[in-house]
């Protein structure tokens, strides 16, 4: 662990464990000391606040306290006795009076919170009496400025519930099913934050589809990020779908730990926090990445894990002093880019706070010198981009304002035209780069560099009028001789027929000489995914020592693809057989996010 005292500019290494830690669910939280505790906290001249590190430890869990901002920690104190709760827990948080809370999803017949009132020296478990153990997700607590504790959780039916305590968890209100207000039947990954007295928010990923959310084969729910907010201490909650046009996941979500299949792309320990002006920010993994997935996509298109933050853009805040006066004119749209090409200039911007009333229009201003823009046009507020076809050449400056029924926003930023980057061609080189992946992120790096994926590209070079095939290029760091034996380099994608196909190079055959294959995947009754090899890829498939693997495959062998088709969830994975051929396990060394590709057809590339 490292920590920063200057907003991340520099970092100091904490004491560390000296060995690779075998623990899970590590969490760090901080806050004031309880100065009335027995024994009183020691002098702490360097830091006014304490920092807690909590983690799983065998079947129990422990928290350790730091008095020097996280540089060193004291011993790990068990936070429940050895049979009270299971070892998996949520995030540690500290109240303004120094009371420390760690929630747990399964303490006997209930969920509970471990509480320390003596600066982490001893702990007590305080259950939420009407709760039931979660299906598999950690609960979360938020603590308001007056010490009110909000406990948000997934119950045994999958419902999103929240309970409130005003006496450090000794007694609790009845739990409220906040998801029910939005017809949410299943919820995962709860995260709670609280601000001023009476104000709290509960973030979760929810679906209106009932049933077993972990049934990989049969669950068809569509998942969205929901926020439930209270301004009256939990008496009433307002629930909104924060991303109604862009789901997080389609189909099942694994919450069963390391034994799951391909739907373990979304992991737990999401978080919800509040910025200095009371806006909510939720962090989560997005499995359905815009451009490659939507609500109508097959489950297999929804297996990304893109780190994502949702930020509150309007409405009341968690700190009342920053509440905007509403209804009012919209906030100013933050301008993005003005990319110029032969078709014109494409202007983009961010949708602003709507001021409490729906946006009606955007005003586009344009000028030939900075600061001298005049109104060019008005467009419907459903779009956040505008193609200025009269600006294919020359230098222009743009600004954007928003309108609702209460007025016109201010302006935020000015942007000058810049040349658009060249459009990648499917007809030359390795074609269109569909996915990029960081260098050096493979398991056990810097070892396994031959299995370190850098990119996936797809090309459709012209061969003959009757040849329709893809050249799929997987670039790894290198493939110097000898090529790693018992390894595979695979690209997966989903065709319009809903089937997930793959092409790969593998070196697990006799002598370790790489071979090129293709096939499709299927889901077993256990929920895990099986790769079924259907045949050998085109004989012209190759690899080179610079790490370029080119696998050529006829379109007819992978779902009868044709020009205009879109293949989605294009992603790569490298694996290594550990323990010897026939006896070991496949260990994933590197994997990528997902992209998509629209076929142009080989004929399109004739002469290009």
């Amino acid at each position, binding site marked *: 662990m490292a920590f920063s005292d200057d907003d991340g500019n520099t970092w100091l290494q904490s004491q560390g464990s000296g060995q690779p830690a075998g623990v899970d669910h590590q969490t760090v939280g901080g806050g004031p000391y309880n100065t009335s505790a027995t024994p009183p906290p020691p002098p702490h001249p360097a830091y006014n606040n304490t920092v807690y590190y909590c983690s799983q430890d065998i079947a129990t869990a422990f928290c350790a306290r730091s008095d020097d901002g996280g540089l060193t920690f*004291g011993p790990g104190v068990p936070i429940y006795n050895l049979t009270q709760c299971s070892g998996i827990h949520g995030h540690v948080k500290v109240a303004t009076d120094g009371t420390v809370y760690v929630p747990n999803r399964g303490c006997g017949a209930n969920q509970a919170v471990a509480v320390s009132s003596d600066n982490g020296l001893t702990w007590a478990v305080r259950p939420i009496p009407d709760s039931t153990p979660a299906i598999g997700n950690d609960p979360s607590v938020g603590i308001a400025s007056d010490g009110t504790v909000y406990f948000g959780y997934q119950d045994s039916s999958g419902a999103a519930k929240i309970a409130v305590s005003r006496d450090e968890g000794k007694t609790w209100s009845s739990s409220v099913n906040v998801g029910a207000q939005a017809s949410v039947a299943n919820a995962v990954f709860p995260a709670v934050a609280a601000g001023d007295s009476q104000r709290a928010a509960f973030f979760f990923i929810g679906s209106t589809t009932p049933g077993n959310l972990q049934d990989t084969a049969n669950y068809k729910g569509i998942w969205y990020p929901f926020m439930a907010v209270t301004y009256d201490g939990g008496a009433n909650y307002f629930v909104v779908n924060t991303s109604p046009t862009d789901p997080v996941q389609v189909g099942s979500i694994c919450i069963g730990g390391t034994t799951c299949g391909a739907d373990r792309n979304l992991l737990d320990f999401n978080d919800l926090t509040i910025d200095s002006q009371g806006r909510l920010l939720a962090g989560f993994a997005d499995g359905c990445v815009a451009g490659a997935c939507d609500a109508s996509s097959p489950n297999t298109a929804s297996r990304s894990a893109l780190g994502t933050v949702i930020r509150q853009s309007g409405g009341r805040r968690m700190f009342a002093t920053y509440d905007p006066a509403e209804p009012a004119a919209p906030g100013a749209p933050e301008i993005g880019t003005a990319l110029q090409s032969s078709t014109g200039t494409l202007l983009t911007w961010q949708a602003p706070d709507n001021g409490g009333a729906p946006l009606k229009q955007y005003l586009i201003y344009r000028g030939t010198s900075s600061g001298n823009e005049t109104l060019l046009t008005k467009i419907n507020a459903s779009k956040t981009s505008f193609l200025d076809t009269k600006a294919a050449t020359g230098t222009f400056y743009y600004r954007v304002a928003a309108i609702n029924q209460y007025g016109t926003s201010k302006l935020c930023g000015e942007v000058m035209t810049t040349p658009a980057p060249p459009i990648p061609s499917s007809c030359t080189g390795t074609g269109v780069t569909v996915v990029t992946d960081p260098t050096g992120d493979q398991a056990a790096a810097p070892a396994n560099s031959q299995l370190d994926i850098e990119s996936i590209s797809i090309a459709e070079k012209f061969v003959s009028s009757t040849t329709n095939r893809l050249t799929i290029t997987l670039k790894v760091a290198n493939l110097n001789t000898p090529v790693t034996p018992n390894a595979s380099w695979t690209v997966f994608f989903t065709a319009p027929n809903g089937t997930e196909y793959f092409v790969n190079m593998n070196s697990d055959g006799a002598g370790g000489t790489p071979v090129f294959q293709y096939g499709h995947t299927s889901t077993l009754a256990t929920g895990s995914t099986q790769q079924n090899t259907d045949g050998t890829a085109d004989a012209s498939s190759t690899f080179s020592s610079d790490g370029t693997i080119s696998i050529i495959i006829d379109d007819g062998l992978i779902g009868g693809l044709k020009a205009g088709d879109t293949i989605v969830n294009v992603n790569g994975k490298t694996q290594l057989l550990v323990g010897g051929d026939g006896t070991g396990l496949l260990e994933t060394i590197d994997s990528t996010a997902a992209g998509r590709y629209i076929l142009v057809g080989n004929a399109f590339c004739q002469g290009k």
Partner: protein
Amino acid sequence: MRQIAAVLILPTVAMAAGAGKVPAGACSLIPSAAIQRAFGEPIANAKPLSQIAGELSYSHCFYSLPTFTNSISLSLTGPSPADADHNAARELWQRWFHGAANDADRDAPGSSEEREAAAKAAPVPDLGDEAFWVHSFVGNLYVLKGSTFLRISIGGKLTDAERQARARALAVAALRNLDRRH
């Protein structure tokens, strides 16, 4: 808003243990001299907590030292009066360090992660009946002795080997006192 009474477990002084069935209070197990030898400073405060959970008795002590990061967490788990055959703590030990006791445990949510953690426990030879060092952000030493086991945690900016050596020295002192009480 309806208020529901929650079960509250209050800290209590754990000096009443004894009689062979309930472990001695953890705060009386490590002599101040042993701590002085290991850390070079005396105990400033010893805060106890004891609980009975079915067939298990649990006693914890937080030994505060003047340098807070030198402080020690010691917990002692043994049979409660409800454990007729005095085997509950030993069975728990077996489940943690030698695999799940039954198939139901194996299917419990999250148990796969818990087994991952158990896999990181390193055997410590010649200490009690059996002992394990669990690698983590702080050092945790588990020692089984008869029908009880203890857990000692040490923090501070030490190497893993230094933490283990100090924890071992404290465990030896604690086991010596534990033997005298039986």
